[in-house]
């Protein structure tokens, strides 16, 4: 096999793995949109916030330290301990569940039955609020998230595949973190699907997504389901936050990954979990392959920044419901 062909395959593999990370973010959007019709602009900030919280808890930071010091004139910043990864993840999850409950109790409970645009505006407010809280709680400095995930290229894969091509080919370069992210994403998605198909709460979730009145009449509490859905979105945000945070450090620009999820959703459809996965993979592979084959040689490179949006635009024109979304049918 020629080296060029093999490098093309490497690009595709790396694209697939980047796509997994996009899909992780998109998944959070789909969960909430399906169950409550809310397009949650704050999903990216939730990923940021959960990563901040995890990093803060692990390093034993005192939450709201600046605020406390400013009011009481104290000088506390650290508890002086380090929390082990697993315990910190569980604590962060608890924080995300509390957040979910607060969102439902103080925001969306009062907006039941409102226009989608109003719900959307509320999530924009929520995004900025959460960003502010994250800053106030943990400070605005860039944090490293050392959760013990492997980094760098996998030598094993490189060695195992170096014999495939000629002298020009040195084996596939695949980031170990991307491999971990892929495995975690697969487990997460399998878990979510098992949950929504086989459990009573999952069935209730689908029921609420379909018809509120009918759901009430069979004994489903809407509030409980919505808190549950926001908690799940918090879990997905945490996983996305860990992966992205481990890759590029926990910084406030992390919340912008939400923008990368938009083209993924337009491709996959806002209402489909498999759609979010496939959409993420297509965008991931598409932008890497486009850069490799057309962007770098002919267009001067840096096409990865805009390729996804152009692809999404094409989808909006020709298939607005996405690949797996519910057909948009207007009955007269």
């Amino acid at each position, binding site marked *: 096999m020629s080296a060029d062909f093999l490098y093309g395959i490497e690009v595709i593999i790396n694209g697939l793995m980047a796509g997994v990370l996009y899909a992780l973010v998109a998944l959070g959007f789909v969960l909430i949109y399906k169950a409550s019709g809310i397009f949650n602009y704050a999903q990216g900030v939730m990923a940021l916030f959960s990563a901040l919280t995890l990093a803060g808890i692990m390093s034993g930071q005192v939450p709201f330290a600046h605020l406390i010091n400013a009011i009481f004139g104290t000088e506390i910043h650290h508890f002086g301990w380090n929390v082990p990864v697993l315990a910190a993840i569980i604590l962060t999850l608890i924080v995300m569940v509390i957040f979910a409950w607060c969102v439902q109790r103080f925001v969306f409970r009062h907006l039941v039955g409102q226009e989608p645009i109003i719900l959307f505006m509320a999530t924009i407010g929520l995004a900025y609020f959460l960003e502010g809280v994250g800053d106030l709680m943990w400070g605005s400095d860039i944090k490293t998230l050392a959760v013990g995930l492997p980094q760098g290229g996998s030598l094993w894969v490189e060695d195992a595949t170096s014999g495939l091509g000629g002298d020009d080919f040195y084996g596939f370069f695949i980031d170990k973190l991307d491999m971990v992210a892929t495995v975690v994403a697969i487990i997460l998605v399998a*878990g979510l699907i*098992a*949950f929504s198909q*086989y*459990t*009573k*709460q*999952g*069935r*209730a979730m*689908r*029921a609420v*997504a*379909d*018809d509120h*009145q*009918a*759901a*009430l*009449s*069979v*004994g*489903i*509490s*809407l509030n409980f389901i919505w808190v549950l859905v926001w908690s799940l979105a918090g879990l997905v945000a945490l996983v996305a936050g860990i992966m992205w945070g481990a890759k590029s450090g926990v910084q406030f620009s992390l919340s912008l990954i939400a923008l990368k999820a938009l083209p993924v959703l337009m491709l996959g459809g806002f209402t489909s979990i498999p759609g979010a996965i496939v959409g993420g993979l297509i965008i991931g592979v598409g932008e890497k392959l486009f850069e490799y084959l057309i962007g770098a040689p002919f267009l001067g490179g840096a096409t990865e920044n805009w390729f996804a949006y152009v692809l999404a635009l094409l989808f909006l024109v020709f298939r607005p419901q996405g690949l797996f979304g*519910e057909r948009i049918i207007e009955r007269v």
Partner: protein
Amino acid sequence: MTTDATPYVTEDGRQIGGVMMDLRDITLRFGGVEAIKSISFDIREGEIRAIIGPNGAGKSSMLNVISGFYKPQEGEVHFRGKKRPPMKPYQVARQGVARTFQNIALFEGMSVLDNIMTGRMGHIKSNMLAQAIWSGKAQREENENREAVERIIDFLEIQAIRKTPVGRLPYGLKKRVELARALAAEPDLLLLDEPMAGMNVEEKEDMSRFILDVNDEFGTTIALIEHDMGVVMDLSDRVVVMDYGRKIGDGTPDEVRNNQEVIDAYLGVAHD
């Protein structure tokens, strides 16, 4: 008016027990409009109780009060001898009150089977994790619930459409699926809001038969709203008649049929 609540046996041999639900001086307002004006009546165990009246009489509002969708401003609801505190609809449902809707509220995206399974929500006790990993106990429970649902499917003769998404069904069958979902909960009290509206004669006969069979075989207490007088008189043990939010008649079909006020409300009356 029937006031004593001694159990008795009907002509066709069904047991009618004591008072199951007692509504006392219910008043419901929407802004300045009084939809229900101080109405009292009761529903007894094992009976088929009809609520009739012209359009806009407040029948559906009454059913919504019973099922917790509306909260009356005044009056008390007593259920199984206890005063019921203000409740959310899902809490009422968990107490064993199932209902159908006038305009059908089904989960359109799910199959008939899944729709009916949602009715079993209150009968699933094992925890989330056990269900997700398909543990032995959870699986047994799931199988039991599936069997119960299959019995109802057989009973209502909808085997042929088990796997069909509800959105694709014609109106008459949707009504039947909605009844199946309500039955799946094995309710003590079943509320039917115009179960035969918009049906042709044949479908109405089927539905009447199902309602009678449910009452007879499962002993389910039924309260229903219906427009078709013939159907109501055939089906029900006792009838409440409403007009403009007031109760104008209450009793057996024969008593109600001969009540002058009821005749006036239905046929119109000359104002002199």
